[in-house]
């Protein structure tokens, strides 16, 4: 490991310390999860539906708080952060983008700058910059409403919106899940290109192994609320871990077809 890598490992951007989460009067969803995310890396959370991936993601921006253990973001436990400040410093992209239907593209991207009371001119130029970054034509799209956009365009707006206040961390919950295969692979390529340039700390949930291998620098596999492990891509593919192999096998089968 080189010096920069060591440094990043010493001060992880996000760290899960024996985190458990149980919904109020509900089942235990996460059980003793520990892993860390270094600055600038993309960690992909894999697993079946209900394995706890999305719950883990929501613990990072404190949409929920752990019932045991702690999630440390930027050196502080999320329960010590002011939740509003924490969330504004983290970009958040969800599956059907969660765009506000009564805001046009420009207004949607400007949500966090407006919450932070940026001067108008700064917001306007930031929105213009971001639309270019995510490949949206400003002159034709800035004043359209979400229902007038294609699925791919909506997702681009979602990404631009998450990047607006230039957060260090980006959380993505199946960001490309609802897209057709062609649009999906286009957006995946663009994500890679973008990530090369921006070097954000990204935590992404997906249940598509191929997407995970393509976009992630490391993969964390969840199984029934436990973490089977966090692996580099090579480790993951070669792992003898039973849970990993079980998870991979249907994809192997699919690839063989």
């Amino acid at each position: 490991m080189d010096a920069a890598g060591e440094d990043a490992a010493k001060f992880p951007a996000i760290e899960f310390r024996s985190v458990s989460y149980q919904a109020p009067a509900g089942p235990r969803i996460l059980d003793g999860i520990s892993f860390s995310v270094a600055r600038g890396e993309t960690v992909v959370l894999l697993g079946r539906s209900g394995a706890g991936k999305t719950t883990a993601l929501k613990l990072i921006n404190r949409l929920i708080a752990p019932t045991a253990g702690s999630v440390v973001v930027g050196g502080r436990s999320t329960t010590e952060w002011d939740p509003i400040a924490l969330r504004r410093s983290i970009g958040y992209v969800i599956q059907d983008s969660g765009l506000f239907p009564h805001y046009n593209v420009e207004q949607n991207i400007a949500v966090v700058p407006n919450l932070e009371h940026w001067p108008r001119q700064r917001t306007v130029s930031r929105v213009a910059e971001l639309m270019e970054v995510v490949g949206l034509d400003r002159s034709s799209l800035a004043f359209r409403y979400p229902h007038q956009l294609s699925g791919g365009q909506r997702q681009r707006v979602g990404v631009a919106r998450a990047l607006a206040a230039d957060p260090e961390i980006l959380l993505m919950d199946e960001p490309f899940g609802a897209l057709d295969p062609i649009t999906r692979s286009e957006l995946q390529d663009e994500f890679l290109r973008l990530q090369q340039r921006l070097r954000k700390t990204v935590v992404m949930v997906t249940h598509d192994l191929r997407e995970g291998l393509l976009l992630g620098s490391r993969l964390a596999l969840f199984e029934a609320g436990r973490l089977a492990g966090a692996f580099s891509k090579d480790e993951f593919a070669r792992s003898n871990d039973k849970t990993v192999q079980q998870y991979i096998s249907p994809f192997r089968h699919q690839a063989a077809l």
Partner: protein
Amino acid sequence: MLNFFYRNRGQILTLTWEHLWLVGVAMLIAILVGVPLGILVSRRAWLRKPVLGSTNVLQTIPSLALFGFLLPAPWLGERADRLAIVALVFYALLPIVRNTYTGILGIDPAVRESAIGMGMTDRDLLLRIELPLSAPFIVAGIRIATVTAVGVATIAAAIGAGGLGELIFRGVAMVNDQLILAGAVPAALLALFADLALGFAEKRLRTPR
């Protein structure tokens, strides 16, 4: 007929004005109470049953009986118009409260989740997302309540609160169709007008999807 209206235009106008005033003041109060109550109910699930239940019961009381019940109340009984307004507010609450909270609860959970995830405070969420998106529902509730109030307000004349009901009651007592119509036609027009205007507002506020 028109001749009759023309001859009594002074009185019809005065009574129409009274009618409008009763309904207008009552609706203003009902909105100021009902919308916040609906917001509260959307945030506190345990309040849903008691609040909706009691506003529902209020609505089932026949209007004439409600006016009668309120008559002996200390401060209310002093002035008939005061009493009429309170009764009208009672009737208007249910549709406003119910529509406010259904409108808020009907918002796409993904929208609410991303709003909170982006760091909106509860106040931001309410003012920037929930109220604008539920506005058409809230206006629909106000519309139903207003149209009902215009009708119910005619009965307020029975306790001497004035309004167009006076002509109707007098007409019934005197078996005078023209007099009844002189009260009923303007009342119906008022209701129709309120319905159209608020229906238009509702349409304008609707977010295209």
